[in-house]
């Protein structure tokens, strides 16, 4: 695509928007137009993080998928914005009447626990599960950059469990906790890091539920020594 320049300064943002919009109107006419759409989407998402184009890109992904056309680069571009809003947009297609659309949305969200390609749950159930998971984890999610080039089951976002345990939001691009940690929290992070992955997940889930239901109890629990926190969180579960 020789006519797409590689100048990504702020004043060129409109230039790439116009390339996208022109080719959006001409999509499917020829391979050149579709390639220009892929590339301009990649630039708008990975350079400018322009979330306003997410719905249109997703629409093209589903449209092309129905026709059995190439979508990998567009999916890559779509997630490059690195914002969990992308997950919310996909989740709405879980209740699509179109089977291929429903299946693709399941595939794209299959990194969410309980959303599995071959699961037999109803569309509505899957949609609600996805919505709940996104709502619960949104402020703790960070972008991993995983794609279908790298693995058959990419996880484009992961939960920062320590952040969830502390109920502190993270930067979506790095996963780092936005707020500066106190000395006590830094000590807790060392203990938390020693847990295995499933224990981290359990601990953060317990913390989230307590925080949501009763902040007073949550504060009291977080003040306990770490071992006691663990005992309460894993009561009834085995832990390391």
């Amino acid at each position, binding site marked *: *695509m020789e006519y*797409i320049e*590689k100048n*990504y300064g702020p004043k060129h943002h409109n230039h790439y928007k116009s390339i996208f919009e022109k080719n959006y109107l001409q999509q499917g006419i020829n*391979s050149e137009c*579709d*390639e220009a759409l*892929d*590339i301009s989407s*990649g*630039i708008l*998402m*990975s*350079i400018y993080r322009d979330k306003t184009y997410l719905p249109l890109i997703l629409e093209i992904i589903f449209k092309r998928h129905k*026709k*059995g*056309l*190439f*979508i*990998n*680069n567009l999916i*890559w*571009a779509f997630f*490059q914005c690195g914002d969990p809003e992308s997950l919310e947009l996909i989740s709405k297609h879980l209740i699509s009447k179109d089977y291929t659309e429903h299946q693709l949305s399941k595939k794209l969200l299959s990194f969410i626990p309980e959303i599995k390609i071959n699961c037999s749950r109803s569309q509505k159930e899957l949609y609600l599960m996805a919505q709940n998971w996104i709502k619960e984890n949104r402020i703790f999610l960070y972008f991993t*950059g995983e*794609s*279908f*080039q*790298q*693995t*058959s*089951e990419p996880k484009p976002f992961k939960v920062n469990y320590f952040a969830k345990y502390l109920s502190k939001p993270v930067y979506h691009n790095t996963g780092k906790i936005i707020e500066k940690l106190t000395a006590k929290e830094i000590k807790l992070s060392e203990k938390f890091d020693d847990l295995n992955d499933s224990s981290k997940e359990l601990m953060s889930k317990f913390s989230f539920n307590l925080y949501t239901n009763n902040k007073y109890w949550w504060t009291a629990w977080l003040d306990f020594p770490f071992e006691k926190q663990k005992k309460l969180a894993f009561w009834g579960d085995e832990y390391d």
Partner: protein
Amino acid sequence: MSMIEFSNDQTSLNSIINEYPSGSIERKIILTMNSNDKVYQYPDLKFLKFEINFRINILKSAKELNDSDLSFLVFRKSKCNTDFWTRSDEGGFVMKNSVNPCDAIKDIYVNGAKYGTECSTAMVIVYYRAFLNIFPEKYFNKLFDETVLMNWSNINFHLPGIGLLKKASDNLPGDRRYFKNPDVDPTEAEWQGENVIDMGDGSFYGHGLGIKTEEKIIHDLNEHRRKDATVASYLMKETGNPDYISLAREYYKISDKPLKPL
């Protein structure tokens, strides 16, 4: 304590090691497995030997694919020999019903100039070829009669796990690895990363780049970053592998014969 354990076998590790020449890749695999905290568990010795043999065949297939004329082409422009394959609208290769699966895979190595694809598909081809080197052709034809080659999608049920990357405590020859290029120029999305096979001698095979050291692959990927890039490409720690135990079970179910010599 040995880090390689057999459930039904009391064979000593020394006797296994001595079966392979000093300095060989086979010996390197065993020694690496044995020098780590991770415990490698096998039902018995022949399962370990199967894995070693499969890994050696991955290396052989990777080297041969690198020596073939297979070109690097993005999916949008991919090509294949239409005597054996049909190019899908996505850019993948769909095996024709009328051909023998083993001939279709071998053709990629023989008529490489008629084929062009991305690095992930090349990895899958390597796995198919390694499988074909070990299992009888008749069996291969039976299992892989509906093959589609396109990155990590449509992976055959009989090659479980090859599309996944998992945390690894050590790296072994024949592992699939991934170089990530987070600041790739979005006009060249195909350089977002490189799938490679760890050749076991400090080099890696990646389709489109060749067989190179870690530093050289990182250098090559960095050339495809955006102008204001701040993050360099890097080799991820995770590794990908077929499920060797289940493959070995398949193999020993159909054959009591020793593994094909390399």
